[in-house]
């Protein structure tokens, strides 16, 4: 046996691993080494045991399994020599954890080593115990550790103190055993022991109310005195960090004082002076000094009220904000976020500096500063703040714009003092970053605009101007198109001119130009184009002179590949051509959208989008609450644009809007369906041939066209509008052509048989489609049986098909095995799977489900995800 071989062999292994060029090579080297180590273990080789374990630790760090070496640790720990024990304990901490049974076996060795005559072996044992101690070991070994708190060597005392922390965290009942020993540690002079002793006392206070009382009574004064000594202590080179004497002890003491002062006015009083001294005297040009200041601020904020100190603390944070070090600004913002609840006024004073941080180079600082600004906004400062933010929006990074835009919109909605200001700011945001504005935000804007009747002219003219400069911003274009469609004549005639406006000259054909540009832009999405078509239809009536030209534009879309556009184009041109007499009533201005119901709906429909959108309810002070005249029809008009959108997530909001409204339709059928000539005709038109007399069910017909048979295609229906008078309301299989509209049928529970529900298309992507059929067992209204049917319209077979679903807490879901895991191509077959859902909030909350589908196409893994919100309401 060569005594020098072992060390080099560890080096050799590391070299070999480092020399590997590929992961496969590395695995091969490791495999070889592991095999050799296993062999050595099974031969019970003693000479190389600790070298092998050292290797295993290295292998473990690289992420390979090493469990087979666990017993070797125990053997090494039981050995007599120091090097063996050292490696054994290192291995114990790295390779094992407190959950393993093997650990039980080590308790005895630990106990012996804690009583060892060699203090370094005691140190090793304490270190290992502090890292991996389990509750049982804590109970067994607590007396040893407690005794070691009084050991002669300070190194052992400090290790024992930290070990005690682990013990009392595992078994809080043991806390009282440590009280006296811990209190005596506070009288130490050795800094290392003091740091750990203070930490032990802090943790004792956390786990035991009794300990907290004890230390509060006995130690508050002495700790204040100790901190005073530390602050005024002469220079101590070995504990000095960047010129500050022992910052760690400072910080530990400040933290302990915080625990003592929290919720106790007397204790807090005692420490006021020293806190003020630390806050004013500590040098702040070094990280260590700032760390102390930061800790001091946190303590001041946590202890009982002293407004003078708090102002001092917040001013320190204010100073931090202009520090050149990113880290300091970062922690200051974090702390201000907490401080704002304690003393909002004091934080307000630093608003300007905080606003500067929104423009910081560091993204994480920007983000925090923006959040803080968001919290700082109130009725009095909203106008200058928003002005600053919008100005910054122009120059900000692309990747920050989304967040900034969302926050600005939210602030504007929440705090706007008047409508004109709201509209102005929103238009600025739309022209600057319209592509980042979320759909619900500009929908809300439209609701506000439609309610501000005295601002219609002003708004449409502003939008016209904005469009000239920022036509690349999608949502600006959408709002502009909608407004021009509605209020086109106000644009042309300068109606409702405000004093602040300059009159502009816009001809009728200029207005149509805008829509034409918008509809022909390459970047326009389906929603925009569909909105343009409606705007054109409206303008054709308002601008008779342009009627011919408008019809030409509309006709161009007859050949659109998108069913929705094609259908609209054909319908609208037939209205313009053949139905002059009803056209004017048909395209009357939209009735005012009801702000109250709308904002309520928004709040309800967006529960999970965080504070930003929750706060975004529309409470504009001078909003005149108009009676909700047939909101259903308006919303349909506006949102039917999105109907063909195939993605299940994209049209979420609109679907939701519709979903909610449909439910209203059921309850309000009397009011909203009151047959008014114009709207009714439109309804009929959209419902493609259902008899107009069917007042309350006509909505149903629009929205459940999937209820007829496959044979009738849409186009045929349009051309022969009377062929469909007999639409049954039985939930038949949906026809593929009508899938587009299918999403809506879900919201309409079929009257009559309480136990049948319309099937829904739960999910649809380019090629994958999931249908849900529902049934309920009589007498158990909470449980629903769902038959899921998956079909694949792509030319490729999907293999390894797995469907997973998740539901919120109030639901329970059980998935039965699927009928197969291969999904044939081109719709030539399907997989079925049944799901049982139990709704504990039956009748209160509708079903909702998140789904994930995994499969392989040509051997390639594919993953699709979605959320199903369109369950029938009363499941």
């Amino acid at each position: 046996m060569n005594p020098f071989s072992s060390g080099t062999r560890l080096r050799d292994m590391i070299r070999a691993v480092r020399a590997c060029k590929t992961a496969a090579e590395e695995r091969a080297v490791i495999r070889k080494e592991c095999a050799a180590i296993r062999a050595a273990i099974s031969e019970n080789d003693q000479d190389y045991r600790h070298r092998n374990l050292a290797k295993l630790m290295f292998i473990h760090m690289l992420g390979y399994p090493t469990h087979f070496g666990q017993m070797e640790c125990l053997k090494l720990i039981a050995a007599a020599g120091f090097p063996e024990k050292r490696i054994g304990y290192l291995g114990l901490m790295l390779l094992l954890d407190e959950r393993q049974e093997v650990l039980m076996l080590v308790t005895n060795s630990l106990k012996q080593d804690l009583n060892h005559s060699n203090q370094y072996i005691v140190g090793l044992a304490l270190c290992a115990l502090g890292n991996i101690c389990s509750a049982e070991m804590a109970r067994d070994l607590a007396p040893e550790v407690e005794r070691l708190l009084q050991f002669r060597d300070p190194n052992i005392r400090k290790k024992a103190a930290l070990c005690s922390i682990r013990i009392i965290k595992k078994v809080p009942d043991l806390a009282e055993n440590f009280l006296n020993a811990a209190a005596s540690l506070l009288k130490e002079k050795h800094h290392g022991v003091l740091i750990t002793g203070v930490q032990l006392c802090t943790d004792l206070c956390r786990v035991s109310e009794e300990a907290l009382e004890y230390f509060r009574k006995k130690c508050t004064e002495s700790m204040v005195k100790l901190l005073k000594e530390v602050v005024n202590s002469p220079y101590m080179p070995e504990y000095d960090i960047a010129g500050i004497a022992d910052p760690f002890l400072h910080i530990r003491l400040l933290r302990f004082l915080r625990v003592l002062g929290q919720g106790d006015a007397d204790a807090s009083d005692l420490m006021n002076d020293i806190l003020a001294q630390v806050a004013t005297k500590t040098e702040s040009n070094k990280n260590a000094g700032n760390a102390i200041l930061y800790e001091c601020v946190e303590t001041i904020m946590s202890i009982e009220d002293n407004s003078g100190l708090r102002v001092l603390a917040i001013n320190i944070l204010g100073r931090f904000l202009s520090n050149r070090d990113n880290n300091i600004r970062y922690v200051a913002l974090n702390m201000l976020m907490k401080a704002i609840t304690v003393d909002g006024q004091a934080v307000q004073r630093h608003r300007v500096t905080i606003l500067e941080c929104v423009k910081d180079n560091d993204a994480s600082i920007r983000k925090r500063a923006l959040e803080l600004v968001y919290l700082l906004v109130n009725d009095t400062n909203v106008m200058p703040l928003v002005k600053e933010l919008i100005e910054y929006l122009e120059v900000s990074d692309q990747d920050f714009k989304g967040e900034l835009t969302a926050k600005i919109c939210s602030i504007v909605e929440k705090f706007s003092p008047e409508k004109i200001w709201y509209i102005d700011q929103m238009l600025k945001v739309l022209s600057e970053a319209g592509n980042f504005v979320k759909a619900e935000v500009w929908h809300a804007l439209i609701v506000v605009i439609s309610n501000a009747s005295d601002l219609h002219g002003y708004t449409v003219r502003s939008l016209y101007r904005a469009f000239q400069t920022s036509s690349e911003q999608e949502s600006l274009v959408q709002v502009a198109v909608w407004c021009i469609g509605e209020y086109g004549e106000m644009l042309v005639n300068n109606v409702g001119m405000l004093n602040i406006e300059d009159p502009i000259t816009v001809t009728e054909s200029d207005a149509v130009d805008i829509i034409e540009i918008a509809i022909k832009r390459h970047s326009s999405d389906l929603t925009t184009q569909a909105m343009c078509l409606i705007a054109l239809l409206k303008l054709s009536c308002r601008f008779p002179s342009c009627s011919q030209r408008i019809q030409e534009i509309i006709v161009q879309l007859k050949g659109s590949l998108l069913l929705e556009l094609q259908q609209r184009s054909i319908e609208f041109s037939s209205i313009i051509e053949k139905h002059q007499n009803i056209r004017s009533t048909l395209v009357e201005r939209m009735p005012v959208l009801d702000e109250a119901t709308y904002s309520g709906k928004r709040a309800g429909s967006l529960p999970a989008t965080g504070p930003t959108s929750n706060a975004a309810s529309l409470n504009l002070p001078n909003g005149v609450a108009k009676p909700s005249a047939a909101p259903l029809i308006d919303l349909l008009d506006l949102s039917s644009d999105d109907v063909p959108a195939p993605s299940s997530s994209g049209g979420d909001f609109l679907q939701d809007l519709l979903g909610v409204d449909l439910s209203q339709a059921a309850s309000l059928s009397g009011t909203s369906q009151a047959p008014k000539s114009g709207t009714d005709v439109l309804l009929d038109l959209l419902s493609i041939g259902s008899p107009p007399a069917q007042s309350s069910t006509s909505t149903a017909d629009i929205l459940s066209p999937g209820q007829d048979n496959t044979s009738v295609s849409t186009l045929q229906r349009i051309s022969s509008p009377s062929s469909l008078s007999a639409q049954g309301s039985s939930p038949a299989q949906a026809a593929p052509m009508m899938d587009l509209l299918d999403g809506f049928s879900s919201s309409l529970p079929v009257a009559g048989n309480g136990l049948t529900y319309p099937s829904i298309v739960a999910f649809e992507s380019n090629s994958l489609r999931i249908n849900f059929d529902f049934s309920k067992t009589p007498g158990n209204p909470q449980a629903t049986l769902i038959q899921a049917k998956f079909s694949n319209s792509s030319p490729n077979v999907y293999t390894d098909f797995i469907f997973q679903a998740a539901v919120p807490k109030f639901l329970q879901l059980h998935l039965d095995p699927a009928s197969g895991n291969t999904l044939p191509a081109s719709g030539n077959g399907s997989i079925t799977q049944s799901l049982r859902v139990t709704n504990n909030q039956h009748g209160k909350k509708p079903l909702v489900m998140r789904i994930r589908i995994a499969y392989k196409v040509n051997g390639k893994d594919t993953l699709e995800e979605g959320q199903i919100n369109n369950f029938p309401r009363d499941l």
Partner: protein
Amino acid sequence: MIKAVLVINDKGKPRLSKFYEFQPPEKQQELIRSVYGVLCSRPENVSNFVQSNQLFGLDSRLVYKTFATLYFVFIFDSSENELAMLDLMQVFVETLDKCFSNVCELDIVFNFSKVHTILDEIILGGQVLETSSTEIMKAVDEISRLEKASNAMTLVPKSIATWQSR
């Protein structure tokens, strides 16, 4: 409490990993990978703090610092002061530097068990044990001396020849 100390090189290889809260080995590797993923995409001149709630659970903060080819990473919860953790990292690196005189990545690779010993003298069970690098060095030197002594006595194969070869 400190939850983990990691040293990762600029290629993503772990050079030292010490978890003070139990994590199964697979999870450890995953965490190292994701921490590396976050760090190597950080631009320069930004703060040393990273939100790490997704990786390490609520109430966790991550401080990192780059030294030559290595990322030093401390993960800890709200009971530690972020700025002080930066200083502690400095203490750790200074001690390594004293130990290996001009420490470089290779020193850490080949002497990882010594690096562990040093770390164990600074942090114990996730709590700060000692902050003076002089004190830490004293303790580590004592341990080396003991090791050497018992090796000389028993002529047992040396666990870490590199210790003595320096």
